[in-house]
């Protein structure tokens, strides 16, 4: 086995483990930040400062009984969380999180910090994000429970309508960056304008960033757009009937999707691993900082804002966000055509 292949395998495993642990870290961060915003302590008993709380949560979930309603469609009911979790993991495969590196001279060739360097990475992400809706729809439908069904219906409508704006927001970046590969897009954002403004696409495409993040929150079913699982209305929405590890998979998928959306936003709009002070080989630190900032924003939003109503979200998606995205795309296209940005 060549060292390069070995490095690739190690990298894949590394990303997998990191994603798993990022979900655990996010659970902890979510609870701690929520506590901070709500002036309480949050978890503090398990481990120092409650750091082992996510592990305790997982252990608890593992020992719970796996329940399935008698009237549920057994195959689909089992399959749904697997689809959700798989789609969440798969999407991250094409996301680069650092510059090319030789791991401090260990390798002869340079390796890209990314599981798979696909030249149409943006399309792959888009495609896999569309897949993840199946997990939720099937979960809602197969449980044969009314609350689950309503949650499933909501999510299918919501995710399909937001995918359009999400896709259009991605397309504007493609126009500006003139590439479909995320690595190329990130590398176009290196350097600065006038010596101090980083050449990040967010400054070229502020509206695109706004649309991307809004649609991204709707895509990942997070508050204030968390209708499919709106606790106060639908008990737990599509995962009402799930327990134990199959519930944990939905939970995991939600957090990994958040990480993916933030990582893609970092790559597309915030210059990826480019940043001042650090050498390029340590660019992944910048990447982590930017992703963490976006994730914090996610959590902050959730604990501050009330929830939109389902029909209002649909109206917002179709009547505000989509026209904005289309106009943004047209203006960008015209700009690229005339000024050759």
């Amino acid at each position, binding site marked *: 086995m060549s060292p390069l292949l070995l490095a690739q395998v190690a990298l894949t495993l590394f990303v997998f483990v990191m994603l798993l642990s990022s979900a655990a870290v996010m659970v902890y961060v979510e609870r701690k930040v*929520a506590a901070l*915003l*709500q*002036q*309480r302590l949050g978890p503090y008993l398990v481990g120092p400062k409650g750091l082992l709380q996510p592990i305790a949560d997982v252990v608890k979930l593992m020992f719970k009984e796996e329940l399935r309603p008698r009237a549920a469609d057994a195959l689909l009911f089992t399959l749904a969380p697997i689809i959700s979790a798989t789609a969440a993991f798969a999407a991250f495969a094409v996301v680069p999180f650092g510059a090319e590196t030789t791991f401090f001279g260990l390798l002869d060739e340079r390796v890209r910090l990314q599981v798979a360097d696909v030249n149409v990475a943006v399309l792959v992400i888009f495609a896999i994000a569309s897949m993840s809706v199946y997990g939720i729809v099937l979960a809602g439908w197969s449980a044969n429970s*009314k*609350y689950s069904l*309503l949650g499933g219906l*909501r999510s299918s409508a919501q995710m399909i309508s937001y995918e359009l704006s999400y896709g259009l927001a991605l397309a504007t970046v493609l126009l500006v960056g003139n590439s479909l590969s995320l690595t190329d897009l990130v590398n176009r954002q290196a350097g600065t304008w006038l010596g101090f403004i980083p050449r990040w696409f967010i400054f070229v495409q502020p509206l695109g960033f706004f649309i991307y993040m809004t649609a991204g929150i709707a895509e990942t079913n997070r*508050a*204030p757009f*968390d*209708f499919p699982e*709106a*606790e*106060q*209305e*639908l*008990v737990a929405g599509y995962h009402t009937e799930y327990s134990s590890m199959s519930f944990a998979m939905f939970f995991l998928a939600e957090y990994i999707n958040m990480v993916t959306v933030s990582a893609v936003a970092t790559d597309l709009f915030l210059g990826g691993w480019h940043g001042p002070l650090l050498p390029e080989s340590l660019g992944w630190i910048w990447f982590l900082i930017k992703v963490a900032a976006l994730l914090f924003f996610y959590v902050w939003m*959730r*604990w*501050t*804002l*009330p*929830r*939109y*109503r*389902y*029909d*209002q979200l649909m109206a917002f998606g179709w009547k505000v966000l989509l026209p904005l995205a289309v106009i943004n795309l047209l203006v960008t296209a015209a700009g690229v055509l005339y000024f050759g940005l």
Partner: protein
Amino acid sequence: MDTPVVHHGAMFDTNELVINMGPQHPSTHGVLRVVLRLDGEKVVDADVVIGYLHRGIEKLSENRNWTQIILLTDRMDYVAAATNNVGYCETVEKLMSLEVPRRARYVRTILCELQRIASHCLWIGTHAMDIGAMTVFLYAFRERELILDLFEEFCGARLTYNSMRIGGLPLDLPPGWDRKVLEFCSVMDSKVDEYEELLTHNRIWLERTKGIGVISGKDAVALGLSGPPLRGSGVPKDVRKDEPYAAYDEMQFDVPIGTAGDTYDRYLVRLEEFRQSLRIIRQATEGIPEGPIVGKVPRLIKPAAGETYHAIESPKGELGYFIVSDGKSTNPYRFRVRPPSFCNLQGLRPLIRGHLIADVVALIGSLDVVLGEVDR
């Protein structure tokens, strides 16, 4: 409720869905059960089912002596126990034509208004949480805790106070208590602004509450609504003003009313009530007279034969007691409560018809019902 209807369309037939919300549901505020008939997510009709918390308090009271009943009234609106106590004691006092010392009436006023703030804290917390704003809940409970501390210092209990006696108070205020109340008032002022900052001008909050569950003043009166749901529709009816009890006739305060009669107006009315309550508490605490805390009460409470109805303004609305005494026994012959939550709940069915599921929880929260009081 009728059976679900099948709508025949050009291509597909659609079924109405009957969904059972409660009695075990995160946002039915206890054990309310609403059977919803849905067309998609739209509520075609609803059946409100109550009775899951029935403990027979009214019947039970007919077998308790007059003093023991105070303890039972605690368990009706358990988030505003002091108000229930005051209502009951004043009814018995009215039946017996007892004179209550001025100091006791002032303390009753303070306790009632503190209780109103505590109850509204619980309301704003749960109402906002039903609409998805989780943090407000924790903020409101933080302030409710301060009020519970004050109550604990006064009577030793934090939820069911048993804090009144027929003819006055069970015990005098602890030393320094009035200063703590005033301190609380100055803390609370800024906290109400904090709730407002989070919600009042929040675009999502506005979209979720404006125009939701509109009820005209006329309909509200016809349905027998009272309290903030009635005042939100622009009817300036408040027992504290109309038939003052305790020391309300000596207090300066305004009765806030809404104009549109929607969820947002009911929200604004309650928010303003926070401020008016603080205003009353300040006046009462600063002007509290010295003197005895219990009037001349006979050893054995045994009202002469007769009946009376007396109502007070509880945080939820008009809380009335109708009591019949036969003049022979030491317990009431008939004990009947007009609970504001029960009457306000009448409004739920007409309010939620035609709205979406998400609005149902907003409207349950907007009526601010406590099931302990509905079922008694």
